[in-house]
């Protein structure tokens, strides 16, 4: 149980996907202007991360490795993610239309989101012994993404109203704001180990 919490909180705080590993920067900069779209996007990302880990981890461990096909990892994973996103979209559209209306527009762009491919590859690199740990790691990464998006959305609404020098308007000031948010996340270093020991 302790191990699960360590993995979960490491993913959310100390090894935050966006602010520490630079994965998923495009949605972080592109969809963080309004709170509802930031939350919608993050929930969609978390959902796809968990789902794709639940599919890619068993396929890698029980299909690719025993057949000496581990080098096919990248191709197989990206195709699984692309197919999975399509299937999830169709299922949501048919059975849970309310959720589809909320998350639908974000799903297609998740296919080429490096955070999703990143989490599936990292789960293999970290060598988790069972699927449960991998899924918890994916959940932690997704929630970390959500936290970063929500925090950054708040910071951005302030920056929008500030009087920014002309050359810094747009992307530059957004990146510098992200640098400051990232500094604050550095404060979590060592926190998770400290709590659970």
């Amino acid at each position, binding site marked *: 149980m302790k191990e699960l919490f360590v993995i979960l909180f490491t993913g959310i705080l100390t090894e935050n996907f966006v*602010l*520490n*590993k*630079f*994965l*998923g*920067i*495009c*949605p972080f*900069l*592109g*969809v963080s*202007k*309004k709170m509802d*779209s930031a939350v919608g*996007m993050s929930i969609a990302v978390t959902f796809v991360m968990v789902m794709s880990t639940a599919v890619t981890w068993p396929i890698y461990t029980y299909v690719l490795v025993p057949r000496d096909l581990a*080098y*096919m*990892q*990248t*191709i197989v*994973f*990206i*195709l699984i993610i*692309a197919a999975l996103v399509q299937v999830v979209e169709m299922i949501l559209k048919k059975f849970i239309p309310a959720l589809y209306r909320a998350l639908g*527009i*974000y799903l*297609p*762009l998740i*296919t*080429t*989101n*490096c955070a999703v*491919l*990143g989490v599936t*590859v*990292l789960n293999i*690199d970290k060598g988790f012994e069972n699927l449960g740990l991998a899924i918890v790691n994916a959940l932690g990464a997704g929630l970390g993404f959500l936290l970063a998006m929500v925090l950054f959305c708040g910071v951005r609404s302030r920056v929008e109203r500030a009087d920014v020098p*002309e*050359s*810094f*308007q*747009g*992307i*530059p*000031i*957004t*990146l*510098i704001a*992200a*640098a*400051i948010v*990232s*500094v604050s*996340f*550095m404060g979590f270093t060592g926190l998770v180990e400290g709590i659970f020991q």
Partner: protein
Amino acid sequence: MSKLKTLTNGIIKENPVLVLVLGTCPTLAITTSVVNGVGMGIATTFVLLGSNIFISLLKKVIPDKVRIPCYVTIIAGFVTVVSLLLEAYVPALYKSLGIYIPLIVVNCIILGRAEMFANKNSVVDSALDGIGMGIGFTFALLCMGTIREILGSGTFLGFQVLPSAMDPILIMKMAPGGFFTFGLIIAILNKVTHGRALKKRAAAGCAGCPAAAACESAGKGEC
């Protein structure tokens, strides 16, 4: 467009990273040193060249509706080749780039060039475009890597350049330094070009981005 223009377009006028602001993830993540930055740049150039040539060759064969999955498969194939080559010949670089090698697949520059250029133009033009964009990407990573390595560890390509009495600014090598350096470089570029870079980004930046449909800043050049 002349052949030379096609080649140089990606290096200066439409530099994928500095002007169009595509491929931000690797730009921020692996530029902690010059060697990593240039290594990533060359690996991406190879993938870009291969995928541009292949997609241009297959542009009449691939049905329009399933083109994105087809492109992604082609790109993933080249990434696997590059990954295996790096592992065999430069294991040290392979180790320090780590997870960012498989992530070349989702680098928006590559898919963006396939969408914007390779599926409309001849094989030779697409190859030149791939090389040009690759050099532009490598150049941008070189700039980022140089600034961050000199300030962050006081070295350039591993040689000591700052006097050792000066403490390196460690934060430049960490995550915040990446965001900060990139923000400053784009701001300087805006200043030097009097905002022309900004306009170009607004005009071309989102056409090849797969995220454009749901992106709030689409067309404003802020993604």
